[in-house]
């Protein structure tokens, strides 16, 4: 009951926060200069007529309520700049699978390897194995993914000719050909995540392995492996699992540079393009703002709730 109340309260706050942020976004984007530049030989009256139809000449508050009215009806409008004439929601939904695909496979690859390396490093703490893993982790955490991008593309695509340097999209994002051609991008995205998981797992597990209850478990006769897996891992996962969950949530925001580098037609660059367009692509900007704000707010709630699910000792909403 407490949890239910807690969720309701958080959802209520989410709605309020969402509307405040989305309103600020709308006003700010509308305050950006949007007058079309005079073009040689172009009848600007025609352009202004179109803008008039779109309501760009009206006061911002009227435009805002117009936006809200249609948004509640599920009509987020058509793109006027980036994807002329196309429903922005449809364009977004068409591109999302590519982003999800590359990030999903990257996480699938990262979790076992990252956790595995973290466990090995923790169990073999202060041995040469731990040192090698920790050094590797530091390198991969500190080097940005686009640097791997260049290296992976050069070595695997141009020198060894194992992969195409760009994604084969003709068969779709979840097709075999699509996944194969995405491998360089998946690898690039995985390196950082693997390092992140390994570092976090090692730190948590190391702490748990030196705790009193683990010592008690060993003295009761459990082997080191049994104590590690049955007791240490479970407790160490309490902070790690929300991190994994957070990674899953963030996959929809895309990875701008990697997508661009490997020509993956995902959503990574949409947001930047929408705001950089001249004039800004308002409908795209608002749709993406709304989407990402919602995802971020929901992620916060889900992660918080997940603590209680992983570790029953943690109770949400209780005083």
């Amino acid at each position, binding site marked *: 009951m407490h949890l239910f109340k807690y969720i309701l309260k958080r959802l209520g706050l989410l709605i309020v926060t969402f509307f405040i942020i989305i309103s600020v976004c709308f006003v700010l984007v509308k305050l950006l200069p949007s007058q079309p530049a005079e073009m040689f030989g172009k009848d600007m009256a025609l352009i202004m007529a179109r803008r008039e139809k779109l309501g760009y000449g009206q006061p911002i508050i009227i435009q805002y309520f117009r936006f809200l009215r249609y948004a509640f009806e599920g009509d987020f409008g058509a793109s006027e700049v980036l994807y002329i*004439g196309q429903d922005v929601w449809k364009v977004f939904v068409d591109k999302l699978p590519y982003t999800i695909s590359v990030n999903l496979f990257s996480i699938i690859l990262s979790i076992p390897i990252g*956790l595995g390396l973290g466990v090995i490093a923790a169990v073999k703490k202060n041995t040469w194995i731990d040192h090698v893993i920790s050094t590797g982790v530091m390198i991969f955490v500190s080097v940005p993914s686009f640097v791997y991008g260049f290296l992976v593309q050069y070595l695997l695509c141009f020198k060894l000719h194992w*992969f195409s340097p*760009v994604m084969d999209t003709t068969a779709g994002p979840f097709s075999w050909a699509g996944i194969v051609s995405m491998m360089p991008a998946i690898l690039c995205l995985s390196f950082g995540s693997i390092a992140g998981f390994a570092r976090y797992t090692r730190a948590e597990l190391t702490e748990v392995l030196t705790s009193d209850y683990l010592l008690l478990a060993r003295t009761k006769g459990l082997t080191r492996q049994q104590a590690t897996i049955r007791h240490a891992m479970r407790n160490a996962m309490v902070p790690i699992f929300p991190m994994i969950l957070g990674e899953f949530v963030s996959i929809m925001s895309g990875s701008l540079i990697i997508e661009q580098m490997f020509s993956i037609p995902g959503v990574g660059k949409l947001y930047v393009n929408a705001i950089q367009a001249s004039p800004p692509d308002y409908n795209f900007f608002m749709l993406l703002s709304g989407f990402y704000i919602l995802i971020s707010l929901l992620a916060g709630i889900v992660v918080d709730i997940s603590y209680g699910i992983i570790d029953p000792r943690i109770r949400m909403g209780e005083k």
Partner: protein
Amino acid sequence: MNNKWKKLTAVAVSAIMCSGSLVGLTACDDPNAGVGKYTYRLATNSLPTSWNIHTYQSNDATYVLDYTEDSFYTFDYNDTKDGYQIVCSMAKEMPVDVSSSYVGEDWGIAEGDEWKAIRVSLKDNLYFENGDHITAKDFVDSIELLLNPAAANYRADSLYGGQFSLVNAEKYVKQGGYNYTAMVSAELNDWEYFDVADLVADENGILQLDGKDAVLNINSLGNWSPDSTYGLDKYYSAGYFDVEGWEEFAASADKDGYVKLNATGLKIVQDAIAQLQGYDNVEAYAEVRGDYAYQEWEEMAFFGYIWDEIDFSKVGVKAVDDYTLDFIIEKPLSGFYLKYNLTSAMYLVHVPTYKACMSESQGVYTNSYGTSKDTYVGFGPYKMSSYVADSVVTFEKNDKWQGYADAAENTYTTTNISIQQVTSENTRLNMFLNGELDSYGLLAADMDEYQSSPYTYFTEGDSTWFVALNPDAEKLAAMQAQTEPMTAGNEVNKTILTLKDFRMALSFSIDRAAYELALDPTGGVAKALYGNMIISDAENGVAYRTTDEAKKVITDFWGLTDSIGEGKEYETMDEAIASITGYDLAGAKKLFDSAYDQAVEQGLISAEAAASGKFEVQIMIGQPGNGSSAYYNDGYEFLKKTWEEAVKGTKLEGKLVFKQSQPLGSTSFASYLQNCTVDLLFGVGWTGSALDPYSLMEAYVSPNYQYDPAWNTTQTMLDVEINGQVLRSNVLYWGQYALQGTEIPTFVVDADGNATDEMVKINAGPNADPAVRLAILAAVEGAVLNQYDMIPVGTQASANLKGMRVQYYTEEYVFGMARGGIKYMTYSMDDAEWNKFVKSNGGTLNYKG
């Protein structure tokens, strides 16, 4: 082992194995793939997201339209393969004049008029790629959709306003909307004014002439003052006049500054002008100037009116029968420019598909035609076989295309086309070297390695890049007043830019060859407004710069005309032009000194600052784009260093300082120079119009487009020798109106150089004597250059690497045909042979020279 641990291990192992097997699988290739196929593979920075011929706004659309659409007429090689001609494609024969069939008021055609109604006869074997027959009605329906008033389609203006303007096209698309004419004084021809008593008040008290509202824009002075960016409201704010009721009047303006005039408003405006002229009110002003005092406001006024509703049947396009199409146009057009304007399919769309793509979004008309494979039906030599937005588009041969029926041997050898979006230049180059692409556009960074490669082809473009300045004394002074010095205690100066000597010094101190080498190694040194690829006689393919008139512009501008002739420094104009580098450091230093002296003398630099040396000429250099362009960043450093070095040893040594602006965006950066927020732009200019330099001249002389609107082209007189007579008119009239087909008044200039009362009307539109047009074009070009506010620096050019298996039809670039294009391109190997060839070379090819 614990089950969970087992599962975890299994997942990890399978993931690793999975990636390993993927690696292995990619190594497997089908040995028979590509046999008999010739795929032309390209990669670009961006692919089109829309190629709807009615609405597309990016040139990327041509990546689709060039292959999937046809045209009435098309460019082809001439018989000697060294020039172009226009030949039939969808049309059966060349256009015919049928003006006599449309004589009457409806179409504005009088008895004896020619080439105002044009007949195009279509071939009977025209089909869309889905097999639907194309008839003349499809063209008419498509134009109706293009001009749909509810859509306000971006490209609707292509059918009005230009050379090929369909009768009533503008009226149809704008029906029901409110419109403003050009300036009232221009509407009535500039030398005429209407009688204020002819104005009639409508039911709301708005004054009208012939049903049109009299309107003033409080933010524009129109033709009244050279200061085209100021308006009466700013003069009021600055205290130049104080007429009662002005604030209320100004408050009634719409968001663009327009106010419809009633009797009270008119009196306010008349009084305001009178006060600006030094009188208390219009009555006092009239005592001196008579009726003109009451009419002067017309120089800054507009007419406003609502476009009448009009039926599409009144628009100048008719399907006479299934295969005969008539166009009725506003201005007569014949010869090359008529055919050139018909090198399109006149916005033909597949009407059923187009209509299926119509919808309303947020209550506004929208159309998704031409945004995916399913929403588009083409009619060109190729058809789209796949499209993934922002990724790839592929094409295959369209067997329904009419052109294959009579295509010559060895044409259209390409069976497939693939264009990928690859934003990284490095990736594109590596893909090319790995044999995955058939062409690669070289960048500045690649030139060291590939400029001497036998596979490198250089192509000169039609654009010139300038250093642009806007020497607007008032605005520069205002900006100067609010600019902080870079060295504390210094007086900031910007108004020195108004001195021609200073601008000339900036020009002469640029080592253009070094500039191009550093920033754009494929480009050349620009010596005038127009480069070598601009065609002035399109009928005969004569390049403008090869004419004597154009050559003389250059020798005059660079001061070499007197040095040409037998026994002189240069024997011919060509020799003289070849010697021009545009770089004269010694001359620049003298000009910097001269500019300093003038600036002190005129008080632009205060005597105190001059005496103490505590001043700085601070120039803000604009940065178009989003700040990531190497061209603009490196160019800023180059110019800064160039000019800082150039003033050494002059009176301005150490006084010239520079700042780079914040990124100004990609489309409206010119406005920052126009309002003097920045003092200088570089790497800017006007592109396109290679076949019509006459129309493009408007960009340099019209305040609507000028980078330097401070130059009032209506007040700058220009003499042009035509048919043995020297005629005088203003630069705007010559450069815009006359060249675009409007009759202008000119005055004969006598032997002493004075204008007489003898008026000669000149119309130098597309159908005029080519020699007259050329003489005017050259004279206006000279006038623009001599302002030294558009300083030519570099010419546009590009270079590309051609794949080893690709064979161009001609090694030399021919305007309109390039080197043969997709039509004439052939291959030495099919795709399968090429793959083997690349593998046999270790997977990476060597294209270095």
